[in-house]
């Protein structure tokens, strides 16, 4: 995807010496490859996908290194935008008449949180696994489904998003959204009528 004038966040905008408002990245490139696979072997199913992406500025000059505006006007050409360059997911499941266990696996590669691609602030790669069991049954002329689910079964400590701002030119503040640790869900679904 070849973007011209991609809209940039408000806090990166500035007016140049001719008082022209710079609110667009003149050229950015988002390109990648996604691979999707489904495999069915008897009662076992596997669904998996992975993507490799390259999102970078070809031409982009912006005001600051983040909120606060202390970074000054900088040239971000060839810098990556804050997306993970590699992600993969897989879902294994088994279809029995009375129970359906499943396992979800997710992996995301390193993710920068600023346009300067500061290595020390980047979110490291993470791996998360969820497991569950689906129990369909009939009772009192109604269809019931009981779903049991454990998210982040290995209790991984990971972050999904981050951003930076500056309190002073040499005081960068990194911020991260932490993802939930191990958590449990139980869902009971009832279907009335035909």
């Amino acid at each position, binding site marked *: 995807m070849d973007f*011209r004038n991609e809209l940039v966040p408000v806090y990166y905008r500035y007016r140049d010496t001719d008082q*022209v408002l710079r*609110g667009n990245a003149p050229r950015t490139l988002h390109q990648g490859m996604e691979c999707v*696979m489904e495999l*069915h072997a008897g009662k076992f199913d596997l669904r998996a996908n992975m993507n490799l992406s390259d999102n970078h500025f070809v031409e982009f000059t912006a005001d600051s290194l983040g909120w606060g505006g202390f970074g000054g006007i900088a040239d971000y050409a060839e810098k990556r935008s804050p997306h993970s360059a590699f992600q993969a997911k897989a879902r294994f499941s088994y279809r029995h008449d009375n129970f359906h266990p499943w396992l979800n696996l997710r992996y995301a590669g390193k993710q920068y949180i600023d346009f300067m691609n500061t290595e020390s602030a980047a979110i490291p790669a993470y791996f998360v696994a969820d497991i569950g069991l689906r129990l369909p049954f009939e009772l009192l002329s109604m269809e019931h489904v009981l779903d049991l689910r454990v998210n982040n079964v290995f209790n991984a400590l990971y972050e999904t998003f981050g951003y930076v701002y500056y309190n002073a030119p040499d005081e960068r503040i*990194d*911020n*991260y959204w932490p993802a939930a*640790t191990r958590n449990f869900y139980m869902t009971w679904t009832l279907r009335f009528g035909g």
Partner: protein
Amino acid sequence: MPLMHRAENVRFPDVGDLFPENGVSVSFRFSDLNSSGYRIGSGTEQKSAHLSVQWTQSRHKTHAEYLWGHEKTNFSWDGVSPQYGFDLNDMDERRYNFYADTSYHGGYSDVNQDVFTQSVAMINHTHILREDLKLYASLYHIGGEGYYRQFKADSDPVAYNLTDFIGNDSMEVDLIRRKWLDNRYTGGIYHLNYLLPAHMITVGGDFRFYGSGHFGEVAYVEDHGSPGDDHRYYNNTTRKSSYSFYARDLITINENLFIQAGIRYLSHRFLVRQDTVGNVTMPYHFILPYDFLDGRVGLRYNVSDQLSGFISLSTSKREPSSNDIYDDGDPTVMAAVEDPYGGNVTEPLIKHESLTDLDGVLIISGKTCVWE
């Protein structure tokens, strides 16, 4: 991905063939969710309901839906910062939420909330007009109203239009504000499919009328009380009218080779009108027009039953949002348009995005495996 389109049978199946249970069906769903959230003090209460009625006959189907939802969420917008002493590897410290920290919010732990109610009503109709002609039409209405509520310490009474209320415009005050949005969205989508021996032609479009009111009110001033339900510190309305037309043709060259080509015209008219309230002394009033023409061309080829692929080249454009153009509650941020006053049609200083997209897909299918 349906790559196996065959146009040799130039007729649509009866709707009843697609939906064999002719007659009327009704479904209803209700949910009530209550979560304390992962971040400290970031819980949410959510209720929703969904009613669906469908009437199917051999040559037409009509489907009506109504959805309603309400949420009250204690937000946790800000991230957790190691530079402020929080260890992301500590099971408790990584859950820190600035907006639930009583030391920064006048002793309140649950004052910062997002509250919103939304409903969606729609009716869709599919009609086989002739064996080679099918109509689809849909009408919808979306309405939503709500606010986010926030504690603001050491606030300027002038900026919040409070000088008459507190009688002293030099004293900073702690207050609780609400930023409201009341919006409505009505529109329709339609298309007509026409089958010819080597073509499937589709023409269609949509129209949308969006209207919204945005206003800010102070719900409570510490040591002074409430300035009343009619209090405003900004008030503005926006209107956005949009319509589009498109036409595309799926051309069958032979049973394995297809070409798709299409063109779309999209138009928006965006109006902003602010009221003179509080420190909004020079209200914005302007109209932004956008007219976009885009195209798409694609080629599909079935090498065999196991191997197929397509490649497409398309363009699209996106206009800046209202948040890109101006700030509701901050008149010191100059609207990014050439002429922000006077109600005239003007040009945005933030350009629209343009995208050229090249897509290629290869599908390998086996008895038990699909690679895409």
